[in-house]
């Protein structure tokens, strides 16, 4: 049933030489086999889309290919030669670049200085000017008009801007050419326009003979640029298909999920007295949340949605309304790295689980177990350390933390980042169900399709909620027009 590509073939169908080939690659973390006996190859100029469930082993495979994680077994060849003890340094010398899932910039350095990390050639007299030129021209190529100040510490930039810098840096060239680039969920915090620019860059690079591995849960991106789609599951490559007219549902099916039918719009929410209402003081629209309502914050990336979201959260907390937050930037704002799934999940509900200031272990276990099962978290058990889960599964636990709490209002900060398609649809359904029970949601997202789940939408422009879209008016074109302002209103 699957079409397996044994021979590497470039876009034009001609035989292209292999850039890299691995056979029997494996990697174990203790008892967990994150990668078991997997073959993988990449031809020059080829764009491979790598997809699979959260925890399928994509990042692990990539880390092994990039030389960042030492493989536990398998053979590894680059340009036909045995790579032996492959390392990050060797990878760099062979022209292999990597953009990792967790951002790999130094927050205290500027984009210019961060560029120096990747390029040993940038040293000696005048290195800074050369570095600035290198990154600036890369940025101008990949993301024209991004307006990013390359001399500002990247820690002061938004997540999306940082991701742009990291992508541009991956494509930047000094003395040695880029031969291949691996991108692990590079678009997870990019807005629509930047994503489009990025995909164009991937195609351009491929035409220049650069090989690309693109890992993403946004299947549309894969369909748009990949020559070949490799699907992983449980540490194994389960399918390897040429992208000659593949469809979204075919990919979903390979992963073992069903594409849900287009769902019906929910019954209109009764809007009497809002559960919570927040005014920015800027004279723009107040954000009102009614019982059972899902309100979205849309707009171009970086136009004040996140700030407003946080302001609402802080204000709701101060007002005493039970409120919970699901962080998209889970590493720095969501998870407690030393703790198990259970401790991470129950931290928001300690008061409810305790008597006389002491937490009941049984109650905590029960609560965790029920959500663990409801969200189908892939882990050996609730005592597993959260960090040993794959990114998407960590995100599910953060969802569970909010849903298991007593919160009447749940604030979602681009929460689907890194979550696989199957899970996403489960979570959408869950959110709608919870809304039916009377909970309200405030939802900021970088993925426009997600707003279809909303009852009402605030579209932001330049830090203000400029437009409100309701019910049927929530559709991509309307959102886009409102985002650019004027045209529609």
């Amino acid at each position, binding site marked *: 049933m699957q079409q397996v590509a044994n021979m590497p073939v470039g876009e034009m169908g001609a035989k292209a030489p292999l850039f890299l080939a691995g056979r029997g690659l494996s990697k174990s973390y203790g008892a967990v086999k994150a990668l078991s006996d997997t073959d993988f190859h990449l031809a020059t100029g080829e764009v491979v889309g790598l997809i699979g469930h959260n925890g399928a082993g994509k990042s692990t495979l990539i880390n092994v290919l990039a030389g960042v994680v030492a493989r536990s077994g398998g053979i590894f060849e680059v340009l036909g030669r045995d790579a032996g003890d492959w390392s990050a340094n060797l990878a760099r010398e062979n022209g292999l670049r990597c953009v990792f899932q967790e951002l790999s910039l130094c927050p205290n350095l500027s984009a210019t200085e961060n560029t120096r990390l990747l390029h040993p050639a940038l040293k000696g007299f005048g290195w800074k000017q050369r570095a600035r030129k290198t990154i600036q021209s890369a940025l101008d190529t990949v993301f024209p008009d991004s307006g990013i100040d390359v001399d500002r510490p990247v820690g002061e930039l938004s997540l999306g801007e940082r991701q742009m810098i990291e992508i541009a840096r991956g494509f930047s060239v000094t003395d040695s050419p880029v031969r291949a680039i691996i991108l692990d969920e590079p678009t997870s915090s990019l807005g629509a326009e930047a994503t489009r620019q990025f995909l164009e860059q991937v195609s351009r690079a491929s035409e220049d003979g650069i090989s690309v591995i693109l890992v993403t849960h946004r299947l549309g991106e894969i369909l748009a640029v990949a020559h070949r789609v490799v699907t992983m599951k449980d540490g194994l490559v389960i399918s390897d298909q040429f992208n000659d007219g593949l469809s979204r549902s075919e990919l979903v099916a390979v992963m073992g999920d069903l594409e849900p039918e287009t769902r019906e719009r929910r019954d209109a929410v009764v809007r009497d007295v809002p559960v919570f209402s927040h005014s920015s003081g800027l004279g723009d629209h107040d954000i009102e949340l009614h019982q059972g309502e899902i309100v979205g914050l849309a707009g171009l990336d970086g136009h004040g949605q996140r700030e407003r979201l946080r302001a609402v*959260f802080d204000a709701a*907390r101060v007002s005493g309304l039970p*409120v*919970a*937050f699901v*962080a998209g930037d889970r590493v*720095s*704002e*969501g*998870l*407690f*790295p*030393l*703790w198990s799934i259970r*401790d991470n999940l129950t*931290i*928001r509900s*300690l*008061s409810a689980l*305790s008597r006389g*200031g*002491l*937490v009941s*272990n049984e109650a905590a276990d029960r609560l965790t177990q029920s959500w663990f099962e409801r969200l189908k978290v892939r882990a050996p058990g609730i005592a597993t*350390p959260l*960090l040993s889960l794959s990114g998407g599964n960590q995100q599910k636990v953060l969802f569970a*933390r909010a849903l298991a*709490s007593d919160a009447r209002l749940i604030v979602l900060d681009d929460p689907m980042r890194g979550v696989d398609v199957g899970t996403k649809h489960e979570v959408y359904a869950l959110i709608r169900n919870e809304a039916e029970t009377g909970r309200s949601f405030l939802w900021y997202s970088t993925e426009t399709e997600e707003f279809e789940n909303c009852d009402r939408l605030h579209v932001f422009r330049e830090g203000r909620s400029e437009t409100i879209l309701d019910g049927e008016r929530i559709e991509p074109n309307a959102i886009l027009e409102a985002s650019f302002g004027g045209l529609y209103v």
Partner: protein
Amino acid sequence: MSALTRLAPWTYGFIAAVAILIIMMVASGVGSLGSVLSTALIFGAISVVVATGQMFVIATGPGNIDLSVPAVLTLSAYAAMTAAAASGGSALVGLVVALGTGMIAGTLNYGAILALRLPPIIATLAWSFVFQSVAFNFGGEATLKPPAALAAFTSFRLAGVQIMPICIMGLTAVAALTLTRGVWGRRALAVGQSEAAAHFAGIRVKRVRLVSYVLCGGAAGLAGYLLAGFTGGAALNMGDTYLMEAIAIVALGGTSIAGGQANAVGIWGAALFFNLMGTMLNTFQFQAGMRFIIMGALIIAIVAIVPKPKVR
């Protein structure tokens, strides 16, 4: 994996302490064991009180540390002895004043951290200068004698067993329960792992941190009070040895210096180890320089073999 690597981090202090006890036993006979241990217990108990307070602060995250502990300890002891004397020798009044002074000091510490946005190491250092000065002006010219009841309590033995360390063990049990099961304890450990994540998990970060500094101050106050009782009064430099030692004890006791993970029981093992190590170095009559070198090497060796929490 060998059995050794599976031991919990906090057990290493105890193992080291027992090892020293055995060495001491070989060196000076089984008969000496009782008195070696009882000395270590009583002085260890004071270190435990100080270190437990410091642990609460360290647990709330990287950079959190209270350098004012020695000054708070001294100041509280002075305040307590003065108040006890003024109230006609009431040990209880002394206790309340000692705890109160310590907790106020803790509040001031966190207040400066928050209001001036200072790193705790600097804020508490600056306060410690001020507290020291206040203690000087409290009557630095004399050692203030403890009330009789306090002196009696600190050296009281029931059937040969010292009561004060037993009481401190009770406090350790409470601290351990607070960390593992207490709502505040869980929240403090959450704050220690990530302030931002804690904030978004609905935790009142500032309050949690405030409480940890207040607890640390209170613990220093209690230690000053007990030490004054046991050593015959409040003296200006009584707290000096309790700063670096307490930090080392916290770390050796299995608490992560980076925060987010703490162990109250392990502090006992580390405190006993520290006191026994001093005894051992004295007993073997090493040159003064050698004593320091061995002490430093032992501290490093033990933190090095203690397994760390998995995550960086």
